[in-house]
């Protein structure tokens, strides 16, 4: 019998708040974090984004990091979420654990802000190594004592989901009894311009699955989970927040940036997650969709949902209408939202949805409270067709 992976801690920061409480409040009040940029300096300041409220200076002050230290915003956001997750789990400080981060931009904010100086002289040489994804995760690890292994997945917008899957493998295999896994990503001019050049950014707040949807809004933040072997968590008296019963990763292998019309990768990823959990489509009470708001993603994901669920599609919503598309962090942020939904008995709204589209499922656009959710699927899809899905369950006691 495989070792069961439970969740004993969760941390989150995004445009809708710092921490789980603020996040739940924003979702129940249907308050989106998408709006005008306040911190990122760009020629495209007219594009709505889901920017975290705190500046770099504010984040450093919150974390007790000296203001003069140059730290990638991706790392700062990650430290906030990892701290919250570890505090909730109550992991002993010296517990040997692994950190699996997920990011694509890494320290790109530092590189783009110092590009001239970095390329012309030697004054900024010390900042060059901060560019990488790995250095950002190492910087997060540096704030804690217990991490004896550190790595980073980088599969663009499914990075955090894949880091949670890798973390779960590290626990299931017996390599670790506990692992902290998730993802973190800050807004940068680099990828704002990249997505803008692809012409998939909506100039209005995004409307996932709506007939008039016109693209995504970028967001930023971090979401991390403490994954733990069930017996280990029970033995130390930790409160179990949920179970990671299954995870699936499949490659669409269709196009570098477009999803296949039949949603093959998404379909396979969700199916694998269900199979590992030993569950069928009828057991799923809610799907937190990748739901970016682009014409292509939402129709492809809908095709995959229809293939998997047939006529009986469970409630589906995209919380990117609250947070924006937090790219590499999205799988972590949305996994935390799924856990909060199970804990508090709500289905998040799918803001902005007005008109059905024949190519899309009809989302649970108003949201619901007072519901009981036992099993939820959390989807993260990416450039390169790197599609992943996590199956999270309410903890019903030791089986």
């Amino acid at each position, binding site marked *: 019998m495989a070792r069961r992976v439970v969740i004993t801690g969760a941390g989150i920061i995004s445009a809708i708040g710092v921490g789980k409480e603020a996040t739940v409040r924003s979702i129940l009040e249907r308050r989106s974090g998408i709006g005008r940029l306040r911190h990122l300096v760009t020629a495209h300041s007219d594009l709505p984004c889901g920017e975290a409220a705190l500046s770099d200076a504010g984040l450093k002050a919150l974390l007790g990091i000296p203001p003069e230290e140059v730290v990638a915003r991706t790392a700062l956001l990650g430290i906030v979420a990892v701290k919250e997750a570890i505090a909730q789990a109550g992991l002993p400080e010296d517990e040997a654990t692994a950190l699996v981060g997920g990011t694509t931009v890494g320290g790109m904010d530092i590189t783009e802000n110092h590009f001239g100086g970095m390329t012309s002289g030697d004054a900024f040489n010390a900042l060059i190594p901060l560019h990488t994804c790995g250095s950002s995760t190492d910087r997060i690890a540096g704030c804690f004592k217990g991490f004896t292994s*550190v790595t980073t997945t980088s599969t663009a917008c499914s990075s955090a989901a894949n880091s949670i899957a890798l973390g779960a*493998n590290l626990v299931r295999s017996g390599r670790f009894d506990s692992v902290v896994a998730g993802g973190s990503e800050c807004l940068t001019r680099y990828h704002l*311009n990249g997505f803008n*050049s692809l012409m998939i950014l909506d100039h209005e707040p995004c409307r996932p699955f709506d007939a008039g949807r016109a693209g995504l809004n970028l967001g930023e933040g971090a979401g991390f989970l403490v994954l733990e072997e069930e017996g280990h968590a029970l033995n130390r008296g930790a409160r179990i927040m949920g179970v990671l019963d299954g995870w699936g990763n499949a490659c669409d292998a269709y196009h570098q940036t477009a999803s296949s019309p039949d949603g093959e990768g998404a379909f396979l990823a969700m199916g694998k997650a269900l199979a590992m959990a030993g569950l069928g489509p009828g057991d799923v009470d809610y799907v937190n969709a990748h739901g970016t708001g682009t014409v292509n993603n939402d129709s492809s994901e809908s095709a995959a949902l229809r293939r998997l669920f047939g006529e009986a599609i469970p409630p589906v919503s995209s919380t990117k209408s609250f947070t924006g598309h937090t790219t590499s962090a999205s799988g972590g942020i949305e996994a935390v939202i799924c856990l909060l939904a199970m804990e508090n008995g709500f289905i998040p709204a799918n803001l902005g949805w007005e008109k059905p589209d024949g190519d899309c499922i009809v989302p649970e656009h108003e949201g619901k409270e007072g519901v009981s959710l036992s099993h939820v699927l959390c989807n993260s899809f990416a450039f390169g067709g790197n599609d992943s899905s996590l199956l999270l369950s309410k903890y019903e006691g030791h089986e």
Partner: protein
Amino acid sequence: MSKDVYILAVSQISVQEPLTLDWLDDPLRPSGRYAPCREPDFRPFFTPMQARRMGPLFKRAAAVSRKVVEEAGTGCPEGIFTGAGLGCIANTWDFLESMCTAGEEALSPTLFMQSTHNTVGSMIAMDAGCHGYNCTYSQDGISFESAMLDAFLQICGDMIGNALAGVHEELPERLAAFVGKGAGGPCEYPLSEGSAALMLSGSVPEGKKAMCRLSDVRILHRPSNLDEVVSAYGASSVLGNDFFYSLFGRSFCSSGLGACAAAGMVASGRVPSVLLVNVSGPDAGLVFLEKA
């Protein structure tokens, strides 16, 4: 976790003779500040039209990947595990430079589309039509060991039967000075680039011979007792950064290229077992190979 994992085939493109290990007895010793790859003849792999459309990073990655899959005879790998420390740095750089110098208008989407770290891993999947597990790892110098660890655990845990693992880095000459500035002052080994691919399997297909066993993979962060960890393996040969830097120059893929060389050394009976010890900043990666 008692399941055996085998390395069925390896392939590399580096400063050494490409797509072979024939040079093992008489390797080049790269010197200077920058040592680019020796490119193989790509004509057997791609049509002229394909080759024109593909950057050097993808050509190398696709060539070594196709070669090991073919040699192993496993067909489409069940999982593709790709290390990418700097990722598609050439496209990233060109997009960044144009954004920082020419401004935020009229940027090319093509550069951006092919600039994420997972571009290579997903292109390998598209090239082979593989819908299986696909993940990319980016942890500076231990990106390779991170990919190998996930592949190793998934084969041991019976989640997949075989895996294509690799690491791919590019360093065009125009970026060598910049990357060099970040890597700290002059060093006895040149900066370099390369591609390494290894076909791993939980069993040896009939009529095939494994090169060696992959007995363990570990990644460590700020290890306080690395020497103890290393000696506990009892490896007949312990090869560190100097081993693979002296053969392949310095890059985030050096240890992956080193693993290809070490697999060749075990396969040919030069040594019964090798522990590769790769220290990269605060992180370390260990790969333990034993004769099959």
